């Protein structure tokens, strides 16, 4: 195998986390940095003529090519897993920028107690309150420690929003339940569509505290601290599953790539499919570099002094397992760490509401509108509710397009084709909205990932196998959410409302969110986590794992700002401490 010239740092994966690390180290240090991205090159000008629903939102052209690699799924360890042969409940991106190109750009922070979920819950409700097979963990980092990094992330992306807690002072109109923030959002909230206004007014009438959703698709022109200028959103509605035509949506290709390209110590190599991380065992355990198959099909060894694993949730875990780094998690004994605490997110249309008046839903943006956090985390009086934690409601005019949204009908309409169906579907096309709910997903011993014994990727390496199903906590939370959504829809003046009919087995065919977390979790003790609170591998101190795979369990909110804040914190620890004295930073 050919050995390439060594670099100081190799980054596996050119998405948000990998490119942010490359930008930080590339602009703050003289290190030579090589980003290996297995997908295609992308740049922000690629999106000038991609407003094509069929190609992007239906055929999912920005997502990973599943003919090359997918994951397998089973509901419990007694079952045989089957491959997810087409995209469904989550949609990982491919190419430079990764999922950060096609995201919806909702940019909220996590609640403070999310980071200390085990301690805060047991302190308040006792150990007995936790589900029997839970594996809930603290993160080893607190909201207070992360706050300055959240602020930097918001400035980097120019996030639009309104503070609800400025240094402890609660502000009406913002999210009064959020943790204290040190600064106001860099740009004001986005415009309010008719649908959003209905939701806002209904929530207020019920005594709740709706707030403008924090949006990395920005409301007005903004120049970030790196000097990157972007224009404001025009509400064309082609956001999720698309790249932004005008760069109003923050994407790795428009906020990170232009900075990276100014530094000739950083290179991005596309078509580079990393298969293994090579490492030395004790007495001097360390990563030596990576082997990858390049764009011509040749397998090569790329030596590096530091390895960043930033390839999205699935492959972060899969590459550690394939490389034999760390002990695979064993769900029976709870020993081993790689693959544990795998979580998705409870994301449901808590109610479908049907209205008399048209909504003009083709206008909007993926992240404009209002959120409702009155039932999030543990901010509400839960009385004797039979579940832990909670989630957020949202109604958003995110730019509805007709292929994906034609045919959402009240249950009273029975037909699914023919004249009656067509007539009803045309009538309701612009007169409906989901009251959506996203809730926390707790970590359980029986939800985990490992290598599939049967199915392989295009190179013959085992696929990642998900063992995943909902538990009572999620089912009861979904019931609760459906009841609240019914009240919200009524207050919005809906003429007909269908509440969510209940959570069945985990369904890989219904798109939920692309917020899939865990597998290489962070934590304060090496017995229960793969990386330390600085995302540094416990056994190989020159290996850092970046991304949602490090979350011990999922919050109710969108993960990107937290992924970026953790990455910035790691970058600071590397620049300020690790490079001076390579070794464990925690």
């Amino acid at each position, binding site marked *: 195998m050919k050995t390439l010239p060594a670099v100081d740092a190799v980054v596996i994966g050119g998405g948000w986390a990998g490119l942010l690390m490359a930008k930080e180290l590339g602009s703050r240090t003289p290190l030579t940095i090589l980003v290996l991205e297995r997908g295609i090159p992308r740049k922000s000008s690629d999106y*000038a*003529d991609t*407003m*094509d*629903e*069929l*190609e992007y939102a239906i*055929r*999912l052209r920005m997502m990973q090519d*599943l*003919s090359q*690699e997918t994951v397998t*799924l089973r509901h419990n360890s007694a079952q*045989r897993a*089957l491959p*997810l*042969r*087409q995209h*469904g409940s989550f949609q990982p991106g491919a190419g430079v920028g990764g999922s950060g190109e096609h995201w919806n750009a909702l940019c909220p922070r996590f609640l403070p107690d999310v980071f200390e979920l085990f301690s805060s819950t047991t302190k308040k409700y006792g150990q007995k309150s936790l589900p029997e097979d839970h594996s809930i963990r603290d993160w080893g980092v607190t909201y207070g420690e992360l706050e300055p990094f959240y602020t930097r992330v918001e400035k980097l992306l120019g996030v639009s929003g309104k503070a609800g807690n400025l240094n402890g002072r609660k502000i009406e109109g913002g999210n009064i339940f959020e943790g204290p923030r040190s600064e106001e959002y860099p740009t004001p909230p986005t*415009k309010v*569509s*008719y649908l959003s*206004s209905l939701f806002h007014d209904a929530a207020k009438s019920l005594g709740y505290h709706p707030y403008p959703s924090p949006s990395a698709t920005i409301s007005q022109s903004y120049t970030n601290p790196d000097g990157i200028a972007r224009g*404001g*959103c*025009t*509400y*064309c*509605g*082609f956001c999720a599953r698309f790249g932004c*035509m005008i760069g109003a949506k923050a994407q790795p290709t428009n906020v990170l790539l232009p900075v990276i390209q100014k530094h000739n110590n950083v290179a991005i190599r596309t078509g580079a499919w990393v298969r293994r991380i090579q490492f030395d065992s004790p007495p001097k355990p360390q990563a030596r570099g990576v082997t990858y198959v390049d764009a011509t099909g040749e397998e090569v060894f790329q030596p590096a002094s530091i390895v960043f694993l930033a390839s999205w949730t699935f492959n972060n875990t899969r590459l550690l397992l394939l490389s034999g780094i760390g002990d695979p998690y064993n769900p029976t004994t709870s020993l081993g760490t790689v693959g544990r605490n795998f979580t998705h997110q409870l994301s449901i249309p808590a109610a479908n509401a049907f209205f008399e*008046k*048209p909504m*003009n839903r*083709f*206008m*909007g943006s993926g992240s404009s509108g209002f959120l409702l956090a009155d039932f999030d985390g543990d901010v509400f009086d839960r009385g004797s509710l039979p579940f832990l934690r909670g989630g957020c409601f949202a109604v958003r*005019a995110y730019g509805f*397009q*007709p*292929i994906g949204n*034609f*045919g959402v009908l009240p249950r009273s309409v029975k037909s699914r*084709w*023919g*004249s009656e169906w*067509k*007539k009803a579907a*045309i009538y309701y*096309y*612009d007169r409906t909205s989901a009251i959506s709910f996203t809730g926390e997903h707790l970590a359980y011993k029986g939800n985990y990932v490992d290598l599939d014994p*049967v*199915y*392989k990727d295009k190179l013959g390496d085992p696929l990642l196998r998900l063992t995943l199903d909902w538990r009572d906590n999620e089912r009861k939370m979904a019931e609760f959410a459906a009841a609240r959504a019914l009240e919200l829809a009524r207050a919005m003046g809906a003429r007909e409302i269908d509440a969510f009919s209940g959570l*069945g*087995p*985990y*369904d*890989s*065919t219904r798109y939920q969110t692309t917020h899939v977390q865990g597998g290489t979790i962070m934590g304060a003790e090496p017995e229960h986590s793969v990386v330390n609170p600085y995302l540094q591998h416990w056994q190989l101190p020159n290996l850092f794992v970046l991304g949602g795979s490090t979350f011990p369990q999922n919050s109710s909110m969108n993960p990107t700002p937290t992924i970026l804040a953790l990455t910035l914190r790691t970058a600071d620890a590397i620049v300020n401490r690790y490079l001076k004295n390579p070794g464990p930073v925690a």
Partner: protein
Amino acid sequence: MRRRHFLTLSATTLGGVLVYTLDRKATLLASQQKPLRLPLRFFTETEALIVVAAASRIFPTDESGPGAKEAGVAIYIDRQLAGSYGHDRFRYTQPPFEDAPTQFGYQGQATPRQIYREGLKGLKHFHLLPFAEQDKALQEIESSAFFSLLRQNTIEGMFCDPMHGGNAGMVGWQLVGFPGPRMSNYDDVDKYYGEAFRPPPSTLAQVTGRKLRPSEDEP
């Protein structure tokens, strides 16, 4: 080499090319035009006629507006099946194939091309039947993979950008008041509360001023 097949579009097969104005008034534009002979990429002529007929029962032409015939749904499906979608270019197709509950998604080996070719064999002479018998034949296959594909592809062909061969004359978009890609709704997004705002539709090629080549046309 397969024999070349054509779908002949005429006033009699299509009921005329209807263009619907914004207030949904039907205007028959082209009934006097010469028949159009479109080369087919995947279907045989008979298969195409069956797809035209079946898609028209799923999305009929009726008093609520134009349907699959006017939108050119069969042309759209023919092109999709000839392209990467029809060949399952982006689907994981490694064995073993196993039966599974619906939560695991489609687990079959057959590509959309194969599903159509098989499924259409079960609809012999469909296009020659009266509507009531056509509906009965479709009801019988309602739970099949073929029917759900046909239904989904019919909706796609009604509402896709016209460059893909469906939504001809943007008739689908006009049915639901979708204006197509619109570079800016900045001045409109926070107006028209409770009233329909229906700007005239434009295709992606019109909006961008570029000649666009859909992926199914790539070699």
